[in-house]
């Protein structure tokens, strides 16, 4: 069963940690007056599953409810998390809830008047999980009360000041030895260069101008700029953008188009002519056709997203007061699915823009840290089959979210700042919709998305616990030598432990068993992708700098011609002048695909470029991610997965095994052919 999706959570170098655990665990246990034999047992229980610096505050034996059969074990509260350890299990296999992700704690008390006898505790996670534990002997044991109090207090504290003790984690990473990250973490210029080559973005280069984070603090140290733009020009041009986040390449379409992202124009600045020309040429990226996409147009605001997510969570609670026959309108009322739709719709439009002709498409959002990432990732998922592979998707998230400085910590509400908005979770939901709609096009499975969804609050890696690459590096001790002279080959210098690549969320084996990781693959993945079947025509004048012949603003689902790219020459910023926007036609039944190709999007046998997916975004097509949001509901936990394809694959493997045994002399090519679908799944 896959309940929370997380098992085997913190088995980081278990042998080494045991001595560290020794002093801390008994001390705290004694402090709370725990009986000695219990603590011994607990100590050994926790020994392999505890983080350094983690302290066990209280524990109590109990029974995990909501499952069948009920699971006896121990409820443990540490300073970092609450976890339930089934009896007799060596490692914590089940769902630790990190302190900050607790949204609500409920107690069920028996009829007695004694308030300190909790019978059952219900812990709601912010990620829609629910831990329901009934205490042994009806809560009469003192431990039950202690652990309850510990949880309640720890929760109260964590909501006041949440300073993640991430420092200790990097030590754990070091002790794990130098392991190569499963995907390039894009912390070195080599990574960027490799990625650039992979995309065949020949008109682009890796710029080192931000190595000291002095151009833009929220940006990564490296990014891609047009090959003809000098670093000094980049530095000046970026100054005219909000928070210094100037136009950078996001993705190079194999057909020649470029997808760029940048922050809003910094209206207060007064650039000279040369700077304007640089900015323009950077936006233009050598294409004669430029489309500026106003990212925020038709998308929800951050506050909207947050509100919708809160409402959705309330709706999906197991004791939600909504009657079953009112469920659908309540779901509609959360507007969450509406927002998913608008994201998909916009991403679909942009991917049509990118694919239909060779041009440069610039996503512009004021902050450039939220919806730009969401849209550019979705566009790549829709139009680049590589992004739909397991590795491709992870490096996509690493590039467009982690390295691009999406403020995970702020948005997911760890710092208590009001700018909470689960934009990343919205993105995951969008991806899940795509997965639903195109079950054969993605190499990763729903379980992978679920694992990613649950990982955003786990305090074992810094991937999702920092706002910018800079802070992530600082914490990690990686950039502690900031004053040193930088060389491009920085990471190759043998400077002690800073060489160790930091552990990232992508090291799945830290938290998941091999069996679970195997489930990350979609058994139905069936790529029918042939890369050369359709490409937009390459323009001969590519990369010759000249004024753009056509400049468009894409908003309200339509393209509007613009006179100029930059706002400074004679009019104020275009993002500041909403009057320029045409209202979207009341009926926009004509999708952009039609405008661009003169084809209906529902064209029969697919003259769409292969590899391009056009998602459905109609009411009936957008579904609720039940396996994620309804996990807290006991009735929804079970029986949802019907792994028919997996079953078939098992059968296939079994048959092949049999065949191999029975007929050892099988011709090699026949053999390889038969094995083909199976090897795909591995």
């Amino acid at each position: 069963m896959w309940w929370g999706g997380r098992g085997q959570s913190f088995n980081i170098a278990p042998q080494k940690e045991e001595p560290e655990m020794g002093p801390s665990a008994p001390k705290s246990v004694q402090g709370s007056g725990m009986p000695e034999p219990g603590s011994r047992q607990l100590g050994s229980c926790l020994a392999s599953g505890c983080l350094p610096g983690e302290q066990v505050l209280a524990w109590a034996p109990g029974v995990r409810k909501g499952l069948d059969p009920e699971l006896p074990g121990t409820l443990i509260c540490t300073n970092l998390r609450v976890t339930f350890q089934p009896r007799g299990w060596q490692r914590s296999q089940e769902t630790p809830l990190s302190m900050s992700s607790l949204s609500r704690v409920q107690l069920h008390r028996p009829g007695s008047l004694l308030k300190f006898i909790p019978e059952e505790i219900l812990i709601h996670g912010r990620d829609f999980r629910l831990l329901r534990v009934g205490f042994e002997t009806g809560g009469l044991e003192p431990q039950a009360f202690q652990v309850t109090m510990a949880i309640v207090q720890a929760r109260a504290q964590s909501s006041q000041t949440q300073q993640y003790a991430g420092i200790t984690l990097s030590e754990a990473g070091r002790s794990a030895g130098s392991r190569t990250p499963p995907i390039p973490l894009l912390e070195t210029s080599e990574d960027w260069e490799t990625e650039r080559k992979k995309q065949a973005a020949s008109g682009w280069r890796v710029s080192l101008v931000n190595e000291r984070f002095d151009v833009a603090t929220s940006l990564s140290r490296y990014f891609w700029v047009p090959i003809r733009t000098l670093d000094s020009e980049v530095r000046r041009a970026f100054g005219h953008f909000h928070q210094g986040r100037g136009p950078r390449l996001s993705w190079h379409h194999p057909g020649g188009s470029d997808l760029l992202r940048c922050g809003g124009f910094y209206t207060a600045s007064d650039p000279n002519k040369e700077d304007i020309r640089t900015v323009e040429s950077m936006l233009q990226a050598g294409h004669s056709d430029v489309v500026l996409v106003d990212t925020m147009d038709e998308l929800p605001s951050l506050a909207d997203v947050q509100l919708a997510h809160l409402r959705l969570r309330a709706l999906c609670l197991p004791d939600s007061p909504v009657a079953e026959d009112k469920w659908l309108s309540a779901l509609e009322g959360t507007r969450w699915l509406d927002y998913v739709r608008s994201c998909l719709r916009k991403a679909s439009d942009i991917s049509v823009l990118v694919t239909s002709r060779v041009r440069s498409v610039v996503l512009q959002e004021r902050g450039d840290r939220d919806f730009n990432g969401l849209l550019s990732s979705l566009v790549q998922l829709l139009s680049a089959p590589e992004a739909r592979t397991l590795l491709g998707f992870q490096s996509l998230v690493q590039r467009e979210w982690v390295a691009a400085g999406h403020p995970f910590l702020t948005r997911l509400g760890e710092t208590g700042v009001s700018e909470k908005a689960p934009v990343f979770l919205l993105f995951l939901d969008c991806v899940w919709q795509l997965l639903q709609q195109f079950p054969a096009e993605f190499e990763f499975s729903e379980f992978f998305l679920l694992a990613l969804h649950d990982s955003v609050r786990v305090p074992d890696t810094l991937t999702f616990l920092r706002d910018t690459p800079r802070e992530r590096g600082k914490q990690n001790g990686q950039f502690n030598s900031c004053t040193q002279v930088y060389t491009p080959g920085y990471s190759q210098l043998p400077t002690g432990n800073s060489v160790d690549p930091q552990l990232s969320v992508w090291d799945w084996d830290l938290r998941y068993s091999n069996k679970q990781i195997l489930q990350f693959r979609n058994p139905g993945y069936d790529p029918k992708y042939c890369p050369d079947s359709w490409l937009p025509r390459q323009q001969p004048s590519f990369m010759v700098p000249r004024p753009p012949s056509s400049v468009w603003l894409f908003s309200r689902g339509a393209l509007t011609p613009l006179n100029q790219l930059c706002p400074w020459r004679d009019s104020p910023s275009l993002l500041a002048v909403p009057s320029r926007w045409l209202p979207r036609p009341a009926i926009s039944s004509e999708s952009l695909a039609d405008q661009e190709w003169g084809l209906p999007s529902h064209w029969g046998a697919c003259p769409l470029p292969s590899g391009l997916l056009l998602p459905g975004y109609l009411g009936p097509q957008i579904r609720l991610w039940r396996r994620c949001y309804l996990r807290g509901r006991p009735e929804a936990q079970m029986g949802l997965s019907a792994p028919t394809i997996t079953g078939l694959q098992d059968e296939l493997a079994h048959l092949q095994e049999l065949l191999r045994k029975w007929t050892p002399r099988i011709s090699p090519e026949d053999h390889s052919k038969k094995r083909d679908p199976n090897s795909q799944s591995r």
Partner: protein
Amino acid sequence: MLGKAVVGAGGGTKVLKPSFVSYVRPEEIHTNEKEVTEKEVTLHLLPGEELLCEASTVLKYVQEDSCQRGICGRLVCTDFKIAFLGSDESALENDETQFKNKVIGENDITLHCVDQIYGVFDEKKKTLFGQLKKYPEKLIIHCKDLRVFHFCLRYTKEEEVKRIVSGIIHHTLAPKRLKRLFLFSYAAAVQSSAATSPKSHTVMFDTLEDWCRELERTRGSVKYKAVSVNEGYRVCERLPAYFVVPTPLPEENVSRFQGHGVPIWCWSCHNGCALLKMSALPKEQDDSVLQTQKSFLEGIYRIIHRPPYEIVKTEDLSSNFVSLQDIQTAYSKFKQLFLIDNSTEFWDTDIKWFSLLESSSWLDIIRRCLKKAIEIVECLEAQNMNVLLVEENASDLCCLVSSLVQVMMDPHCRTSAGFQSLIQKEWVMGGHCFLDRCNHLRQSDKEEVPVFLLFLDCVWQLVHQHPPAFEFTETYLTVLSDSLYIPIFSTFFFNSPHQKETNMGKEGPDAQGKPLSLLTVWDWSVQFEPKAQMLLRNPLYVEKPKLDKGQRKGTRFKHQRQLSLPLTQSKSSPKRGFLREETDHLFKNLLGKRISKLINSSDELQDTFREFYDSWHSKPTDYHGLLLPHIEGPEIRVWAQRYLRWIPEAQILGGGTVATMSKLLEMMEEVQSLQEKINEGHHRQEAPQAEAPSLLRNSARLSSLFPFALLQRPSSKPVLPTSGWKALGDEEDLAKREDEFVDLGDV
């Protein structure tokens, strides 16, 4: 491009409102006319089908986003269908339309399939019925299978318009006599050509042996017997000629109230409990009659409450359950969500999709039906009680609930043959009034209640939630629901077996005097080629495992479900007091005096239901055992294939379940061939390749609406985009763009 005119691309302002204005100039039409007649499709008439009226130069609109395309052709009305004969060569040349119905073409509407007809007068849409004073310029036909047709009559000769419109209205909407059904003329015409219906595996339940065999199969023959008391319909015209009653029941009891008040056996559970149904006794005011009714029921009760019979729980379906009225209103609201005249309408409703869906309460009715069925399953399975369903005629909700229970409990009913036999047993022989409920004769709109469709939708929920448990697919259900309106099959065109037999027995004018032989819908080869029939069968269905190595999974899970059930003897041990009370309920219900608090609404029973439901769902599913659906709010879904299939906007290219399906089929093929190899052992002969469904095996990305989307694929589209680019001007740019389009076309 022959015979086609581009509509809607012209007037810039009107593009946004593509409703009812045609932008085709008459000249355009006339220039094309000659070629049209040359290429025109010939009308295929079925045996016995007669052409009634026709009109030429009719434009059929094809919706393509905001612009409509017109196809010029002939509109024809026969005594079987309304057909449009256009030169849509795209559909004809296209060899991909393998999923073609042999009886009903893409542009055919059987007369019984017509739901509503609207006329457009000066851009105003009005419902058409009866005699018309003025004839519309456009005809909109809403079909019961949710297709919508638009026919433009502007360029048709006036007298032709009159003839065709009044003809269509008369033949579809006017009340009809049963004998005038096309069914009979078809049967009479086919008669000569030796219609030997190949015996299928479906049990028709029209002989005593069929019932006996069913009793044997369910091991109910100990306590129940098949009776032939109604042979020749001597006792009652509603009941079938043969049926099953408790063994000790005296046969004269059956005739006492014309079959009312008699418990009739539906099905026996593996533990010996049985599902029974009973039509309620007529309500009487007269005290003496009431007294006789009461003593009669007491007699019945004495029979079925004695051992070996289990305790009987009475389930009165005419109270505390959805009413026929509810179903009717809900469905008429629900279907409006899908009967869409143009995409503007679609986009308007799209925003409020969920609340509109909810306000129709169709899904809620489905949920309530499933819940009721689960409650009954719980009684039978966990509490070892017999359940007696009571309804006025025992022919509407009784059929629905009892067949749902059987689908859930009896794995045999999840095979194709079993499911068809079930429909035959519970619905056709059970006397469900298909003729009235589908309003085939247009005699009373009030009687039109889609009970059978509701049943199919409930089964679809099960199929959707547990696909491997069923031998048939959702496409099968969709096609079955369409077959309700094809009047060449007798299955769904009679109110009772009696009506069927009396009407086909002596065909008066026919000199032969031989009874007509009517087709049943279960002969799928009438409608589909063998290749297309592949799509009706679930490739993943595994037959009941017979300790086969290849199906290890199945054997491991087998019986787990039944053992894990709370099989503890029912909580209330059969005390006399309980029984007394129960009897009182029985009487009160049967005599029509409803008590507000029925036993099944009590809290205790709610709890056991919940427990049963939860415990089932927390176990791994055995697809050959008991099968329960999820009935929570988020789990009841819209049967997208049936309801959304004609809406092009709802299509996802290369996506949807079809994508998984094709992958599955590929793997199935592989498994099959490997299995064959293994079976052959060492001496390998040239084995014939496993005949796997190859419909899905083409390289092109399939639409999510497959297999239905291909039927209405548009074939061409104006090359110039209509908006957005208008303003740009730049000539060179335009030229370039055209190049690109050419490129695209070549790919």
